[in-house]
């Protein structure tokens, strides 16, 4: 291959990776994660890297999403223990009793509830795992189909990533162009609130227009242990949210323990509040349920590492940033969220967001960065990684084809994409929202 241009060589490597993936998945029936690993290995070998060198790269790459893997597992154990303790059902009962007369306000409130933790901490999984189970129970009780409930939770998580004050994709892009993360909060408020209200209502309006039968909703709830009342019901959630926010509020005084440990502490508290709980069984079930998404995350990390090693990532970046204006916008509108579906919104912000922003310099950088970050969060629902879509499915208990979640989310996702691309293209015109 050495006589070929670099672009041709890398294109061949990328083609081989694709063919190897399809062959492993379709012919060898390896399953998604193993197929990705196989494709990565073949891609590395074709690029003339040695087997031992590639072993190191595959292992190293699989650590890319370690923190997310740990959060997904520990948070799932937390939710399962919450369910078994009866605490989750008690919270659902309380919220139904408080809000049943105003279902539209309730669904918007539930959307903001999921968005709250990531708005302050960053990762959308914080909101999905802290409140997703509660929200899914209420939405199911209100009559929303499970697939829409899953979409609702996933959208809440991903809008939480976007919501101020902490928008990590925007922070990553800003840091990449040496722009301080200052002046983002107010414009983010202006963009986030309408999007959140729209997404909540777009998914639920059809199902909540009729009168709410409170008795029927409460009757569907499982019996709640008598001990589960008052503050006991809310203690695990208060602990989890409190620990997350205290580290954020007093970062130089509260030791940072990491979100996985926060969920472990929340689980520990929940264990002693309700009835007897088989913790070993709960943790085994959680491991079983989270294994598919966690193995995909590890395989994606390894694949991305090989794509970086062989220059495939560079080819993607080059193609994106050297495209003429129209194609640049097209790449941002279509390519960016799709790649965020592989790299997650944080990864895509780093790999593509920074070069995109550099290609867009000359317009209002804060508004354009906010637009790019909006587009990147759409990728959190996109397969194969679906970094927030798949955890939402775990939380809601959705086990059918994941693509159905993407389908029912199409309108809200399109709204986020359109808002994002408008902010990118007309960044200067939208400068007024900076106030």
């Amino acid at each position, binding site marked *: 291959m050495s006589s070929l241009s670099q672009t041709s060589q890398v294109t061949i490597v990328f083609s081989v990776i694709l063919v190897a993936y399809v062959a492993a998945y379709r012919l060898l029936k390896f399953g998604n994660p193993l197929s990705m690993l196989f494709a990565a290995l073949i891609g590395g070998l074709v690029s003339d890297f040695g087997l031992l060198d590639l072993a*190191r790269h595959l292992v190293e790459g699989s650590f890319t999403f370690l923190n997310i893997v740990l959060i997904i597992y520990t948070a799932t154990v937390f939710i399962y223990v919450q369910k078994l303790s009866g605490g989750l059902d008690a919270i659902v009962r309380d919220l139904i009793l408080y809000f049943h007369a105003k279902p539209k306000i309730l669904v918007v409130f539930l959307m903001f509830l999921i968005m709250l933790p990531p708005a302050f901490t960053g990762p959308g999984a914080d909101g999905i795992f802290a409140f997703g189970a509660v929200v899914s129970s209420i939405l199911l009780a209100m009559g929303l189909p499970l697939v829409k409930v899953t979409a609702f939770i996933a959208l809440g998580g991903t809008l939480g990533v976007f919501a101020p004050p902490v928008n990590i994709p925007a922070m990553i892009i800003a840091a990449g162009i040496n722009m301080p993360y200052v002046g983002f909060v107010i414009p983010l408020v202006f963009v986030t609130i309408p999007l959140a209200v729209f997404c909540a209502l777009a998914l639920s309006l059809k199902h909540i227009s009729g009168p709410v039968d409170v008795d029927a909703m409460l009757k569907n709830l499982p019996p709640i242990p008598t001990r589960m009342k008052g503050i006991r019901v809310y203690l695990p959630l208060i602990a989890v949210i409190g620990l997350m926010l205290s580290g*954020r509020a007093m970062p130089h005084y509260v030791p940072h323990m*990491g979100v996985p440990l926060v969920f472990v502490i929340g689980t520990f508290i929940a264990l002693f509040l309700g009835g007897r709980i088989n913790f070993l069984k709960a943790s085994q079930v959680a491991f079983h349920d989270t294994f598919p998404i966690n193995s995909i995350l590890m395989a994606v*990390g390894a694949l991305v590492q*090989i794509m970086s090693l062989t220059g495939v990532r560079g080819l993607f970046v*080059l193609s994106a940033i050297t495209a003429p204006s129209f194609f640049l916008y097209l790449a941002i509108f279509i390519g960016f969220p799709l790649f965020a579906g592989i790299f997650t919104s944080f990864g895509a912000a*780093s790999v*593509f967001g920074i070069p995109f922003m550099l290609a867009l310099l000359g317009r209002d950088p804060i508004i354009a960065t906010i637009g790019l970050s909006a587009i990147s969060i759409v990728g959190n629902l996109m397969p194969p990684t679906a970094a927030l879509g798949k955890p939402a499915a775990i939380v809601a208990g959705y086990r059918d084809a994941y693509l159905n979640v993407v389908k029912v989310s199409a309108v809200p996702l399109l709204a986020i994409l359109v808002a994002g691309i408008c902010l990118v293209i007309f960044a200067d015109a939208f400068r007024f929202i900076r106030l």
Partner: protein
Amino acid sequence: MSMPSRFFTSLILLSIALATAFFTGNHFMSLYEREPVVKGPGVTRVGKLSDYFPKIKNTVADTNVYFLEGSEPGATVVVFGGIHSIETAGMMSAVLLVENAVVKTGRLIVVPHSNESAFTHNAPSEGYPSRFTVKTSWGSRRFRYGDRLTNPVHQWPDPEIYVHYPSGDLQADFEVRNLDRAFPGRPDGGYTERVAYALTELVRKENAAMTLDLHEARPMNPIVNCIIANERAAEIAAMAVMDLGMQGIKMRLEPSPKKLRGMTHRELGDHTQTLAMLMETPSPAMDKLHGRADESLILTGKDEFFRSADHRRLLYAAYGQNGYPLEERVGRHLASVTVLIQLLAEVHSDQKVEVENIPEYKALQENGIGSFLRMPQKD
């Protein structure tokens, strides 16, 4: 699948996993072996960073501090390399100073591996080589490539959001392990803040008149091929840029942003007596745009993708006919160091530092870096 078949499949997969863990584990541990830096003729003593902050003694954070002292009294200049280990030209320039420079007046204090932890790992998903080799006339020298950030083994987990101390500036989560976002540091902070604190103490206790922090940046980053200066150092930096221009070395002057916190040029300038500056040269390996990530990319900086990006005016450091060779990047750093040291005495007559034998820009291009590297002696 039948039980025996399932058992053997599991056994094979387990064996592969164990073999992979054994091999890769050995590889990752080998990154803790520090490459030698040879004491050149100008080195009068070697100290430790823990001399300035004993809490890091016997930890991975401790690193060598090389003193090059002149026979005549004068001012002190501190040079940091390896604050970001993947910014290879910064570390290599510091190594070349230790192995070649001779001080006549004043003192030069050099820390080539400022963040030792960053040299002990590579960033997941980046696909970087672990080491690179520089050829010399007597053989070769191997150097670790590392990562921009502290190894998570030494500081983990990252918070959801990094809040810089003491400014309260908000930054992305991973920046908590970025040494050049941690200054002035805290004695009771995380690993990275403690290293920043130790380096700040070094600058403060050694009464450094000038501190030069050698870095590299992505060619697509507007802040490249430049000297970033704290406002107190703006005058001397501006003069240096002009002097370098007259030598045919184009460097720009960038003011240190007041709202971007934690960097040496901002915090050391604000919290100590020193004139703080940071230099950036282009490193294509750091840019997501790069093609194949191997040793050659680090050493030659040749990559067709950058040529394409340059044709479309997307780069802030022109991609020359020879790419971005390490010799050019190191030459740029050392020429800047040389000029700034000379100007220090001109601008502040009581702060004289005279240094000889710093490898020159032209000599580096002609002879290569290897010709300035000394052969390590076995102890």
